[in-house]
C-alpha cells in the first residue's frame, strides 16, 4: 500500500511537470520582442503579438486589486480583532462558502449590475467581478495572518496607553504586514488567471485599449479565444500567452513566498 501511495503522489506531481513542460516546449519559441510590443494582426496573417492583452491584464487585475484589497483586508481585520462573536462566525462561514462560488456565476451577476445598466462591456465591470472573487479569500488569509500576532504585543501597546484602534493598526497589522501582503499577492495571482468572470464583463478586445470604459483584452481571454480558434497561428500565440500568464502567476506566488520567508523564515 505504501508503494501505491508513492505512485499516486508521483502521478500528481507528474501532471504538473507535464503541463509546465508542454507550456515551455510549445510556447517559448514564439516569445520574442514583437510578441510583447505588437497588437494582434487580422486572423489568418502571421506575426503580431499580445501587447494589448498584457497591458489589459495589468489594468483589469490592478483595478480589481485596488477595489478588492481594502475590502478584503478590512473584513479580515474585523474577523481577527472582533470576530469571536456570532456575527464574526457568520462572516467567516460566508467567506469560506463564497470562496467556492463558481466564478462564472460572479461573471453573470457582474454583467447584470454593471454591463446591462451601462449599456456596454467595460474593463471596469471586469475589475469589479475580479474584486468580488478576491474579497472572501483575502478576508480569510488576512484573518489567519493577524491571528498569528501574539497577544502579549497587544497588551504591551495597551499598557503603554495606546488606544485600541492604534494598537490594531500600528502594532498588530504592522506585525502581520508581510503575511497580509503575501495573501494579497496570492489573491492577485489567482484573479490574474481568471477567465470566466471576464467573459461577459471585460469581454475582450482585439485592439489596443487603455480606456476602462471600453471592452478590454486580458491574457486569459486571449488564450481562450486563440486556443479554441481554428488557426495554427492562433494556437502558437495561445501557447506563448499561456506561458507568459503562467510565468506571471508563478512570479507573484514566488514573491509571496519570499515575503513570508523574510519574516517567518528565521522562526522556523
Amino acid at each position, binding site marked *: 500500500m505504501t508503494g501505491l501511495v508513492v505512485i499516486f*503522489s508521483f502521478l500528481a506531481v507528474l501532471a*504538473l511537470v507535464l503541463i509546465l513542460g*508542454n507550456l515551455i516546449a510549445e510556447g517559448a519559441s514564439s516569445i520574442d520582442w514583437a510578441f510583447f510590443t505588437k497588437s494582434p494582426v487580422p486572423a489568418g496573417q502571421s506575426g503580431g503579438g499580445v501587447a494589448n492583452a498584457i497591458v489589459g491584464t495589468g489594468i483589469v487585475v490592478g483595478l480589481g486589486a485596488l477595489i478588492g484589497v481594502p475590502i478584503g483586508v478590512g473584513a479580515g481585520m474585523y474577523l481577527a480583532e472582533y470576530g469571536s462573536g456570532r456575527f464574526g462566525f457568520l462572516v467567516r462561514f460566508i467567506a469560506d462558502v463564497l470562496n467556492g462560488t463558481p466564478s462564472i456565476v460572479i461573471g453573470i451577476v457582474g454583467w447584470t449590475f454593471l454591463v446591462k445598466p451601462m449599456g456596454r462591456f467595460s474593463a471596469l465591470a471586469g475589475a469589479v467581478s475580479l474584486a468580488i472573487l478576491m*474579497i472572501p479569500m483575502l478576508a480569510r488569509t488576512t484573518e489567519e495572518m493577524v491571528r498569528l500576532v501574539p*497577544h502579549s504585543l497587544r497588551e504591551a501597546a495597551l499598557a503603554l496607553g495606546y488606544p485600541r484602534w492604534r494598537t490594531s493598526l500600528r502594532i498588530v497589522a504592522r506585525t502581520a504586514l508581510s503575511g497580509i501582503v503575501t495573501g494579497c499577492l496570492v489573491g492577485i495571482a489567482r484573479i490574474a488567471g481568471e477567465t470566466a468572470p471576464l467573459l461577459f464583463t471585460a469581454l475582450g478586445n482585439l485592439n489596443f485599449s487603455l480606456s476602462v470604459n471600453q471592452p478590454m483584452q486580458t491574457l486569459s481571454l486571449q488564450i481562450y479565444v486563440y486556443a479554441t480558434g481554428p488557426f495554427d497561428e492562433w494556437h502558437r500565440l495561445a501557447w506563448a500567452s499561456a506561458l507568459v500568464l503562467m510565468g506571471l502567476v508563478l512570479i507573484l506566488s514566488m514573491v509571496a513566498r519570499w515575503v513570508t520567508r523574510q519574516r517567518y523564515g528565521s522562526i522556523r
Partner: protein
Amino acid sequence: MTSLPNLPIEGIPSGRASRETRWQSLIGTDRSDRIYRRILTGFALALPSLIVILFGVLFVESLPALKRFGPSFLVTSTWDPVAEVYGAAPMIFGTLASSFLALLIAVPLALSVAILLTEFAPRWLRQPVAFLVELLAAIPSVVYGMWGIFVLIPFLRSFVVPPLKAVFGWTPFFKGVFYGNSLLAGGIILAIMIVPYIAAVSREVLLAVPTSQREAALAMGATRWEAVRSAVLPYGRAGLIGAVILGLGRALGETMAVTMVIGNRHDIGLSLFQPAYTMAAAIANEFSEATTNMYLSALFEVGLILFVVTVVVNAIARILIWRVAKGAAVGSKAL
C-alpha cells in the same frame, strides 16, 4: 489638550478568563475605538451582502424561467432557443457525471499525497512536494483547458481509448466513437485541477491528528501503513470527507477548462467517450448568444441552481472540516 486614553480598569475579566476574552472586553470603551470598529464592521458586512446580492440577482433574473417551466426545468432535456423551451437535465447530468468522474480519479491521488506528506515522506521531501502540488492550484483554468485540447485529448485518442475500448468496450460506459471533446477528457482535466485542493485540506486534517493516535497503533504492533489505516484515517474521517466534498464543490463550478474539452452537447449519454455539457459551460457558451429574455432567464436559472448547489456543498464541507480543525482557515494556502 489631549486627554489621556481611558485606561481600562473596570470590567476586565481577570484570573481564569482567557487572553482572548480579555482583549475582547477591552474593546469599545473609547470613541475612536468605536469608530474603528464600525469601519471594520462595514468591511465585514461586504461578505454577507455579497452572498445576498448574488442570490438575489440570480433569483430575480431567473423568475421568468422559474414561473414558466417550474420544476420540469430540472428533469426535461429539450433545450430549444427557437421554440423557447428549456430543460436543464442534460447539463445537470453532465455536471454531476464529470464531477464524480473527477472525484473518482482525484481522491486516491490527493489522499496519497496527503498521507505521503504527513506520514511517510522524509522531512526534506515534504516541503518541495507540497509546493509542487500547490502549484497545480496556481495554474489558470484556461491554461488547463488549452493543455486539454492540445495535449490530453490527442494522448487519450492514441494511448488510452483503444485499450479501454478493447477491454471494456462491451459496457455502456465505453461504447461508441471517441469524439475527443468528451466526458472522459472533462473528467480527467477536472481531476487534475481538484487534486491540490483535496490534498491541501486533507494534509491539514491529517496534521491535526494527535501523534498519540499513531504511537498507540504502532505500540500495538501495527506497521506504519496499518497505523495510518486503523488510527490516523478514521480519526480524521469527518475532515477528509469534508476535503473531498470541497473538491466536489470546485469541480461542480469549474468553468473554462471544462467548457474547452467537454464537447458542449445537450445530450444525456452514459458513454464517457461522448460529448456532454455542464451547467457552468452552458452559461459560458451561450450567455452572449442569448437574444431573448426567456433564453437569458433560463441561463440565469442554470446559474441559480449552480450557485445554490455549490453553496450547500461548500457549507457541508466547511462544517465537516471545522469539526476536525477547529476554526482554522484550513486549505486557504491552496487558494
